[in-house]
């Protein structure tokens, strides 16, 4: 009458299709939420999933239902004090007698529908329709690093790379080829000899002749060596150029007195986006944080974003440091170098030409992409004007002006939007 079925091994992703449908339907809302969420993430966090909240009124499934008001009776349990005729004040705030289940018992407001999406989904939404500029060029240029791969066999080599199976197989083939005709002849002779011995009067002369021939053949068969140098096969290795899958991202930021925390936050969001985007394309992405006022310093993420500094601004100090670090640790032939510079546009006027010269002569020659964002509402100063000259000469240099936080994502998209013509 009853039987048990163990379903535990069945797939548990029965709802995957419906979930995807949901995500697809609310793509625009989710995208918006994703764009807002980037400010809360650590720059290098590529593991954790993301919690997304979208307004729950958008996803309500409407129905007709009875509203508040009207005449209602409600039976309640646990009468501890009432007798018929007792009057009670109507509770405030829609505590209607029959407001069943109106109050949320989850302790959380129902205004937001929040759920988590996987990292993969998160990034897909974030970088929908974007691509890395100059990626193809990168792969061609990067034929510097090699990896060793097996590629067939060769007949010369060092003992340690002898392939035994291959060699023995060759030896066996050679032995068969060299002895087949002799063995055939030998069999024939042996047969003749046997016939001769069966006859009543074997001719001793013929017999001796046959025996001699047999002996000769056997000797020759024996002489074919079991293995010959000729048989030996060595594994062949080849060096194949490997496109580098390593990228380094330089975050350059002005931390002088004029940069306040909100400006830094805007820069931070931009770095997060760039990092996430790079790590989708490269297996291995490193980040170098360089901050500067009049002097540049390499720091960790925490210090980069949150420590307070004051003082003037010399942008070129950061560029010098970056160049130095590249020379020391990230040779351009092994690393894909990306840099993002954020500043409020303030610079020592004499320093700006130096910056553009440094970029022009050195950094832009080995960088895949150098982006400069200026976070300011004021009019542009010398740095912006100097840099503008660079955009014409270098297509791996881009600059944008960010006025407020909501500009970040559009501008990021502007930087990396898929180029239809290349």
């Amino acid at each position, binding site marked *: *009458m009853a039987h*048990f079925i163990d379903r535990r091994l069945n797939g548990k992703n029965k709802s995957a299709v419906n979930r995807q449908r949901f995500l697809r339907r609310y793509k625009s809302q989710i995208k918006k939420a994703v764009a807002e969420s980037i400010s809360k993430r650590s720059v290098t966090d590529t593991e954790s999933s993301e919690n997304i909240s979208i307004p729950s009124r958008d996803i309500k499934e409407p129905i007709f239902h*009875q509203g508040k008001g*009207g*005449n209602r009776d*409600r039976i309640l*349990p*646990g009468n501890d004090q009432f007798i018929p005729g007792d009057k009670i004040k109507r509770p405030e705030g829609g505590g209607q007698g029959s407001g069943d289940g109106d*109050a949320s018992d989850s302790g959380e407001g129902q205004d937001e529908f929040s*759920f988590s999406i996987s990292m993969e989904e998160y990034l897909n939404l974030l970088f929908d329709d974007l691509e890395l500029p100059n990626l193809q060029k990168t792969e061609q240029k990067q034929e510097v690093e090699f990896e060793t791969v097996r590629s067939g066999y060769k007949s010369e080599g060092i003992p340690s790379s002898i392939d035994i199976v291959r060699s023995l197989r060759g030896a066996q083939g050679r032995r068969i080829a060299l002895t087949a005709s002799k063995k055939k002849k030998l069999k024939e002779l042996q047969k003749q000899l046997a016939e001769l011995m069966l006859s009543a009067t074997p001719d001793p002369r013929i017999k001796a002749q046959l025996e001699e021939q047999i002996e000769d053949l056997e000797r020759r068969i024996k002489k074919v060596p079991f293995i010959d140098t000729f048989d030996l096969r060595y594994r062949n290795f080849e060096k194949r150029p490997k496109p580098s899958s390593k990228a380094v991202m330089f975050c350059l930021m002005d931390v002088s007195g004029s940069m306040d925390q909100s400006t830094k936050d805007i820069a931070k969001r931009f770095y997060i986006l760039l990092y996430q985007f790079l790590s989708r394309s490269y297996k291995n992405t490193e980040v170098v944080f360089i901050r500067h006022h009049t002097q540049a310093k390499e720091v960790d993420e925490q210090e980069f974003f949150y420590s307070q500094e004051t003082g003037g601004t010399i942008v070129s100090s950061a560029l010098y440091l970056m160049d130095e670090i590249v020379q020391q640790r990230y040779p351009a032939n092994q690393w894909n170098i990306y840099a993002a510079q954020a500043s409020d546009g303030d610079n020592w006027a004499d320093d700006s030409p130096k910056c553009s010269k440094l970029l022009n002569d050195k950094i832009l020659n080995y960088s895949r992409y150098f982006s400069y964002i200026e976070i300011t509402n004021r009019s542009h100063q010398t740095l912006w004007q100097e840099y503008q000259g660079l955009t014409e000469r270098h297509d791996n240099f881009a600059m944008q002006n960010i006025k407020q936080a909501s500009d970040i994502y559009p501008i990021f998209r502007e930087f990396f939007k898929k180029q239809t013509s290349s």
Partner: protein
Amino acid sequence: MTAKKKQKAQPLSDGPEWTFELLEAYQNEIKRVAEYYRLDTYPNQIEIITSEQMLDAYSSVGMPLNYNHWSFGKKFIESEQNYKRGFMGLAYEIVINSDPCISYLMEENTITMQALVIAHACYGHNSFFKNNYLFKTWTDAGSIIDYLLFARNYIEQCEQKYGVEEVEEILDSCHALMNLGVDRYKRPQKISMFEEQKRQTERAEYLQSQVNQLWRTIPQKAAETKIKSSKFPTEPQENLLYFFEKNAPLLAPWQREIVRIVRKVSQYFYPQKQTQVMNEGWASYWHYTILNHLFDEGLVTERFILEFLHSHTAVVYQPEYNHPGFSGINPYAIGFAMFKDIRRICEAPDEEDKLWFPDIAGSNWLDTMHYAMENFKDESFIAQFLSPRLMREFKLFNLQDYEDNKMLEVTAIHNEQGYRNIRQKLASQYNLSFLEPNIQVINVDVNGDRSLTLEYTPHNHIPLSGNLDEMMRHVYRLWGFDVKLVQQQIGGKYIELAHCPVVENTIKDN
């Protein structure tokens, strides 16, 4: 009581871990006792699932398979989040009204919980599904799985043919009207999956031709014109989805079939909505009785029965009206108490019972219990069997909330004057036609602009709520021409509640 106590019976292991052998052993014992109490069930198919799979089952309204729709994805995400954050525990079981009756057991449960679930779902709910008159007349357990399979495949084909968005739009509109897609009075016909498929093509063609008949615009003979000028529909129609399926002028055959699928699913669940108290009460009564019976026989240990009682008490707990955890009357609590009380009335009636229940006081308890389970729904069950003793036990009282009064008023409590009033009020709390808005099709302007008029008839002056404009857009999508929603005022005048497409400067009377 009636069961013979087996002396020195070897008790079954109380786990707490379960094994398939042990489940089998418990199942056999439970089955034996269930048969002893004449529980008549569909064959059981008991499936062990993980908590993730339980979440899957949740999101497709407890069905083992269903068509794809984003709202199920939303449901899934919602329950997954709540479960992960610990806002919500998972149900111990889900049981499906099908033949064989499919029950899901969660792998995390202890053997005690598994035994509880087997008794509750596989014998309690199962026998209810098989024998209650509503289920017998409204649902066909043998064909539901096949029908859902048909529905899923059909909708999938439509998606491939007409695009996911197209299908989704129709489904959205149907889901919005799902509660208004049931026959409350007519009896549905049973139909097997094979017939369903065979008829589907014919139906599509036939329906289309019927619709065209209705909307024929080529001038006809005078006699026909006369017929057309009479009111259509001749009587108000309560089943909106059925009405659209048969009469909406612009729906394509495949869209009609989708309307039908949603309507069928809605109809299938309707009896469950009407028998919540009875169904849960019946199942709870039997898990309680069967497992205690096993304990009396010495087949389960004390540890087992204590763990069981702990869970059982939590399930049938009724918080009081002023308790922070109060959220209405617990159907498990009142249902369980009522079935237990029926047995008491049969076996040990007092004077009050004899006065209130002359028919059943002193009768055979098991016959009476089965009779009660088979022939009632929540509303009539409470109206018939709620005893004064139980009202006292639950300390029930009625709170009146009338719009025009400033204060709420207690109109009846658990005393001699209040019993009948309370019983009648509680029964009507379970009458679905009072709880769901009454909206019916009253007119179609067949000869004019083909507009459709829906009427809302309030119950006890309770106004209609929900996003009416949005709802009307869904109605409009199915109907294809202007739709309006009206309500009759006390003077007999109609006011318009909503109109789609929205008309500027709609004249609204106050």
